[in-house]
């Protein structure tokens, strides 16, 4: 009975992370496409020399968002090898997926010279959550 419940939870987690992963991929790949288009059409306000930090923040948001979306897919696959539902890992990964690209996106606003806006403070928080997710996943894997 307990095994059946655990298995159901694992399935639910797997489905949820697959959904997050592919949805995230859609969002962040579209963001990448928009950024490429801004480059391609040489949009002045985007390419202006004073906008370098803003540009960097958006690129980092795109890259981290895409990467973390793939991590969600990998996490969903990894769950099959888990001994128990890795709820801590799941929640931390979800938090990191919001905080890391979100921090970069928000950091683009209020950038001053080479320093991003205060939204960048979310990034170290996201990094901690991502590390927690990695460690928790490692611990949950079957030996």
């Amino acid at each position, binding site marked *: 009975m307990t095994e059946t419940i655990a298995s159901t939870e694992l399935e639910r987690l797997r489905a949820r992370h697959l959904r997050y992963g592919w949805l995230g991929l859609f969002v962040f790949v579209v963001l990448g496409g928009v950024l490429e288009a801004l480059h391609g059409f040489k949009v002045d306000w985007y390419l*202006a020399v004073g906008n370098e930090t803003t540009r960097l923040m958006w690129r980092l948001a795109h890259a981290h968002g895409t990467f973390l979306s793939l991590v969600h897919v990998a996490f969903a696959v990894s769950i099959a090898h888990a001994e128990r539902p890795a709820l801590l890992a799941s929640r931390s990964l979800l938090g990191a997926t919001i905080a890391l690209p979100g921090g970069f996106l928000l950091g683009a606003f209020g950038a001053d010279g080479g*320093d991003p806006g205060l939204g960048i403070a979310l990034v170290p928080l996201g990094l901690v959550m991502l590390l927690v997710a990695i460690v928790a996943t490692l611990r949950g894997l079957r030996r």
Partner: protein
Amino acid sequence: MVLAAATLILLTALLPLWSLAGRSAKAVAATLTLLGALGLGLGVLAEAPAPQPVAQRPLAQADSGYVGSASCRSCHPGEHASWFRSFHRTMTQVATRDTVVAEFERLTLDWFGSEVALEWRGDRLWTRFDRRGARPAHVERPIEQLTGSHHLQVLWYSTGDGRELAPVPMCFQIETATWIPISSVFVLPPEFRDPPEPGTWNRTCTTCHATAARPRLGELGADTRVAELGIACEACHGPGERHVAANRGPIARYLHRARGGDDSIANPASLPPARSAEVCGGCHSVRILRMQHFASWNEHGSPFVPGDDLQRSHLIVGSDDRDAPELRHELRKNPHFFASNFWPDGQVRLSGREFNGLRSSPCYQHGDHERQIDCTSCHRLHPDDGIVDERWRNGQLREGMSGDAGCTQCHHEFAERDAWWAHTHHRAGEGAPSCYDCHMSYTSVGLMKASRSHAITSPDVNVELATGRPNACNQCHLDRTLAWTAGHLSASWGVRAPELDPEQRTVAASVRWLLKGDAGLRMLAAWSYGWAPAQRASGRDWQAPFLARLLDDPYYVVRFNAARSLQTLDGYGGSLRGYDFVADQADVQPFVDNVTAVWQARWTGGDRPQVLIGKRGLLRAPFARLYARRDDRKVYIAE
């Protein structure tokens, strides 16, 4: 680095080996990985070959509180990027295939009958010629350094005497893509054919064409040091070491940001107007180092640091300073100093020295500090919108300041077009003057052209009569007399009309400047004849014989401007084919006759006595009478 990169690739290639089963495979993988890691370590530790020590040119070395522009980039990427694309950065560069503007492999140039050879030998440019002047010698030396990348590019070779540099006698004029003698760039009597003497860069140019220069001229040769070649960040912001140290940590940076900045460095955009303008005035002025700094100048360079009071370290020369000890000292060395740089009333006559003009302007002098202008009122060294385009690069103007916004940002009453038209007393429509045309007219010369005065004044014929400086009205209305101008200024603006002699009442002012002015005035007139707004106001069909008359002028730069303005008129390109403005008088004289004849054959404009033209063409007698009275006193205007 190559070794490190190769090892890294090898290690990556080893990864699949680790997935193989079996002890022997794992042992091989372990051994190879260990060796690889050792190689990687050695590769990283092995230093890149040390660059060749710079011994033949001024040494760029950031010390004494200077850190170099690279240190600014990580925190100020936008500002760094706009500076990087500015002509300030490339004012002085090391000579390489990338920085030399002219494209060639081997050239032999004619320098008033002598050969000047330029030749790339591998990646180094060499020159060969016979130097004249105070230190004659046969020169065959590598080019070390370049000055300029916008209008002109001057090549400097090492003399072999320490870090001393000397100029190649021919420079590259970028606008026309031609090589011309350096002496022809300036308003100098024709007997001046030699370029500046060896050591001029170390002694003079270095002050403003590099950052934080120390000339260090000694008996054993020059050992010139600069913080950075070109006009870099610290030329305008001062030494950056303290600022970098104060802002290394992110928390400190965000705290400074919350407080609105820190005071560890000067920012001309936020300094009080006078201090801000003096940052630019540190170079863009005619000034003389105060005598108390003479002794330390050679070793330490200029004591002025952005944010300081420039007048504590320098005398900013004006009409009231003729008894200043610094000026008396300068006049002993160079008796032409005042006449070369200034109009008789102390207005600067040399381009690139805008601070002298600004300082004398009411907009700078008035007591309302909220409205006191400085250079940043109109100029921005880093564009507001972050867009670095050619228009910004050419004038470094703030957005919109190429129009009238520079004036109407304070003079709000003229922001309304109706009020503005009423003030100008000009007819609405195309060809209307800008504020600058009347209040900042073209009365400075340099870089082979006229430049706007930065002394903000109003047109007044009385001033022209007193100083000889052309009035703004007649620089546009080339075909009008001083009497016409005086009448309009009196009727529309209440300016007192002076007494005028018959010639001033009957002959167009610009014709008088052009035929009987001194060389500086002739150059201004020749330039004005090619100025599009002046051609719109005065027509384009009558100027050719006057410009033709200047094609054999004794001063090369006058000839150059006459030819350039002729090119703007229709149908004279063919007549000027083969014209060389530095050729001998006998070789250029035929062009005077040819252009005049071409114009004469075409003239159908009727009677225009004010510009000495009758129904059948030029009124040769009055023309010759004026020309015979040309002011031939020697003029020396060399920026």
